[in-house]
Each structure stands twice: as C-alpha cells, then as structure tokens.
C-alpha cells in the first residue's frame, strides 16, 4: 500500500498549491511585513525612550540630582506588541479567509472533484485534509509572527521578560492562531458550500466586516475607525440598557471583540477596570466560535457535491 494517508496527501497537496498562489503569497507577505513593522515600531519607540532616559539619568547623576526610574520599565514590554493584534484582526483574518477559499477552489476550478470523489477514501478524509492544510498554513504564518516578536523582545535594550510574560506572549500567539483559523474555516465552509466562486469569497469577507466593524458598534458603540485602533477599540460601552443587553446577547458572537479583549489582557494593555461586555470570557468565546466554524467547514466539505467539476458561473 501507499505510504501516505489520504488525509496527509490532501493536506500537503492543497497546502503546496495554495503557497504557489500569488494572492495568498501577497497577503501572507503583507501580514508578515506589517508584523515586522509593528515589532520595529515598538523596538524603535522603546529604544529611543531608553536612550533619552540613559542620557538624562547620566546628566542628573553627574549633577547630583536624584535619578527617576526608567519609564521603559514601568510598562509591560508585551504592550509593545499591541499593534500586532490589529494586524492579525485585519490582514491576518483576511489572509486566512483567502487561504480557506483557495484550499477548496483550487480543486473546484481544476475540476478534479469527481476524480477525487471516486477514490477509496471517506468524504471525511477530504474534509480533514483541507482543515489540516488550513491549520498548518495559519500556524506557519503565526510562527513567523512569533519569531519576529520574540526576536524584537530579545533585542530590546533594558527589557527582560519574565517566565510568566513569555507564557502570556505564547498565549497571545495561540489566540491569534485561533482567530485566524476561525475566519479561515469560514472561508473553507463558504468555498465548499457556495455555487459560485464570488459568493464563496464574498460571504466570509462580509462576515468578517460584520464581526470587525458592525458588532463592536452594537456592543460598545465603537465607530469603525476606532475598531481598528488597539487602544480606542477597548473603550467602555455606554452605560445604557441597550448596550447592556446587546453586549450580553451579541458579545459571545463578537469574535473580533473577544480577540481584542483577550489580546489586550495577555499583552498587558487592557485599561484597568475594563472588561468584556460578553457573558462568557473572551478566550472561551474564541474557542467556541472557532470550534463552531470548524464544525461548519467539516459539514460543508463532507457534503460538497463531488459530481460537479467546477463552480457555476
């Protein structure tokens, strides 16, 4: 028998194809470049402040004046990575949607579904392979982002992360992977379910726009422009009955809000006294929504018509 399991074959073949796609490559490069910029901005700001402090401290010490504490050390070094949460929420999620869409549409556009459908493998093997490919690619992107974040934090002068902070950073990377996987899985599901390629791509993008900009307006009265700022996106909701109700009802479904609160908490920039309006914790919300998206993708992939060679026009 062949040495390769069908799931692994489908996953590796699909991932290889998607990596060759220009749109996917462009979005992945954009994501990595933005993460790099985010890390560089954090590094630049901190080292500038640190340099000024060191000069001022030397001057004050020479003048016999008391030297205040280094402001760099007063904020958590993890907060320097806060811009990354915006890039994950915007470019990362979009990249994941495109990856999810392409993983299915490569087979549909190539017209090979009937040739795969008659192979001696369960429909679930095809679904598992596609989901594994998506998770592998998302984890790959997050691994690159994590490598940049770790390098930046190790190179920053005057900053040393504690063991707990390294764990918090790992937690942030994990929830970022979950957030991207959630949208990637929706992309997979839509590409498998939709009759046309355009609908397969537009549907998850519409859901992403709703999650990123409309739900935060309903739960916290946030303007769309505020929603893309890591600090203003964490403003407290107006103290009215409507926002209490919408926060409680829509909060668990607001994946973007859940990600923002969870990442602010893990990266130590959540304003004191502020908490998610949702009735369940942001991390639990993220896990549940990603699992639901996974279930949706699996169902759509296992029920996809293998008789059809390609998308309808």
């Amino acid at each position, binding site marked *: 028998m062949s040495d390769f399991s069908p799931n692994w*074959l489908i996953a590796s073949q699909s991932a290889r*194809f998607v990596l060759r796609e220009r749109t996917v490559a462009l979005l992945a490069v954009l994501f990595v470049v933005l993460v790099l910029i985010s890390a560089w901005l954090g590094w630049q700001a901190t080292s500038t402040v640190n340099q000024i402090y060191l000069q001022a401290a030397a001057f004050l010490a020479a003048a016999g004046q008391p030297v205040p504490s280094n402001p760099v050390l007063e904020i958590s070094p993890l907060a320097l990575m806060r811009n990354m949460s915006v890039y994950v929420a915007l470019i990362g999620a979009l990249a994941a949607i495109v990856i999810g869409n392409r993983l299915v549409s490569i087979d549909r556009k190539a017209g090979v579904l*009937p*040739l795969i*459908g*008659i192979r*001696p493998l369960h429909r679930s093997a095809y679904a598992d392979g596609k989901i594994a490919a998506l998770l592998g690619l998302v984890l790959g992107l997050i691994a690159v982002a994590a490598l940049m974040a770790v390098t930046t934090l190790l190179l920053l002068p005057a900053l040393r992360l504690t063991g707990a902070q390294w764990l918090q950073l790992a937690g942030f990377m994990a929830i970022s992977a979950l957030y991207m996987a959630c949208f990637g899985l929706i992309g997979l599901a839509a590409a498998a379910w939709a009759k046309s390629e355009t609908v397969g791509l537009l549907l998850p993008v519409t859901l992403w726009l709703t999650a990123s900009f409309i739900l935060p307006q309903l739960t916290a009265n946030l303007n769309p422009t505020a929603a893309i700022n890591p600090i203003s996106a964490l403003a407290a909701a107006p103290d009215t009955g409507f926002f209490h109700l919408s926060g409680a009802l829509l909060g668990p479904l607001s994946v973007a809000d859940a990600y923002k609160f969870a990442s602010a908490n893990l990266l130590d920039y959540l304003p004191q006294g502020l908490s998610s309006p949702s009735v369940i914790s942001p991390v639990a919300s993220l896990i549940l929504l990603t699992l639901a998206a996974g279930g949706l993708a699996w169902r759509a992939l296992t029920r996809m018509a*293998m*008789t059809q060679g390609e998308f309808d026009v």
Partner: protein
Amino acid sequence: MPDPMITIDRLTQVFDGFTALDALSMTIEAGEVFGFLGHNGAGKTTTLQMLTTLARPSSGSATIAGHDICTDALAVRRSIGYVPENVRLYDTMTAAENLLFFARLSGVDKPKARVAEVLELLDCAALASARVAGFSKGMRQRIGLAQAILHQPKVLFLDEPSSGLDPMGIKMLRDVITRLNRDFGMTIFMNTHLISEIAKTCTSIAVLSHGKLVYHDRIEAVTARYGDEAALEALYLSLTPQGRLAQVA
C-alpha cells in the same frame, strides 16, 4: 453463465420533483463492453454518477463487483475507474505528478512504478513530464484513462469518452478500450452517443430515454435482428423522442 459484474435494481434519481432516472433495472456481466445510449438529458450521466458513488440514489440499489453502492461505497470505489466526459486535471502539474497524486489517493502499491507502467501501457510516456495545461483534448483523455486504471479496477466507467475527439483520437480510444477489456478482463461501462463506436466496440447495449430503459440486449442479438450499423442507428432513433421527430421531419 458469467457472473454479473454490475447489478442494478430499480435505481431512481429524483431532483426537485423531476425524475432523472426512473427505476432502472439491468445486469451487466463480467468482461462485457457495455454501451449505454441515450439522448441528451436521458439520465446516462446521472446513472453513471450513482454507480460510481459520486451521487446517492433517491431509491433503488446497485452492486458493483458484489459491493453495494450505498452501503459499501469504499469497496465499490476500489473496484472502479472513472473517466469523466471532460477530463480535468491540475493544470499546473505535470501528467506524472497528477497521476502520482491519484495513485497515492487510490492506495496503489509502488505508485511511481505504476504510473510509469500505465503511461507506457497507454503509449503516452512522452507526456509524463509535460504540464497538463498545454494538453489537447486527446492528450487529456489519455491521461484521464491512465488515472482511471492506476489501481487496476475491475470496472471502467467512461462518460462520453469520444466526445470532442478527432478520428485519430477516437481510434486510439477504441484500441485502448479493446486492450483493457481483452488483456486485463476489465468490464467497460460506456455512455455514448456514437452508434459507430457501439457497433465496433460493445458486446451489449442499452438505450435510455427520459430516464427509462427502453432497450437492452447483447450486440449479436441486435446485429442479427437489425443487420448493420445503419439499422442500428434506425433502432436508436426510433427509441428516442428526438430521433422520432427527425424521422418524421
């Protein structure tokens, strides 16, 4: 009496209230080259999709090599090869890469060696390292046949295999079908429009009209009764509504 390779019992497919296939029942023996004739929309492709386990029937049942298409789909898939009407492959990959992928998915032992063997068998080893994107219809059809026989199936399903082929391509296809049937004992189930191909290749035929089986017999019986190819064409036309209209006109 040879064993039945394909047994179909009241196989029915209904799409949104429209009966595409209406209680089809027939038996095809092992080693036959079976020609399935019918007008466009008669239900030939629908039948083939159900027999290849790509679609589930609304009712009825069928077995391929003794395996039920609904309850034992994996065993059916191990026993069959399928060439769709328009062979579509991964265009950015070479012919050999495409075949290797399908061979591995089929669980073929020593897939690389098998791909080389099949390409040699179909006289298309020269296409192995060429990208599929530049292939003609005839070349695609050959690679389509190659992917269908990689795992040495007992039954080969062909959906309009000669559609769009030039005379050379049609002759090549006929030769390949004959060799696969004669040398490897493969049972061939072929959907087609071409009466001439039926007469030259098939051992039995059936005619489908508006989802109903209207004729099924061995080719010797058909030729004995109707004589030559022209008479066979007249038989086919008399059994299909378009044919009857054409005859009236």
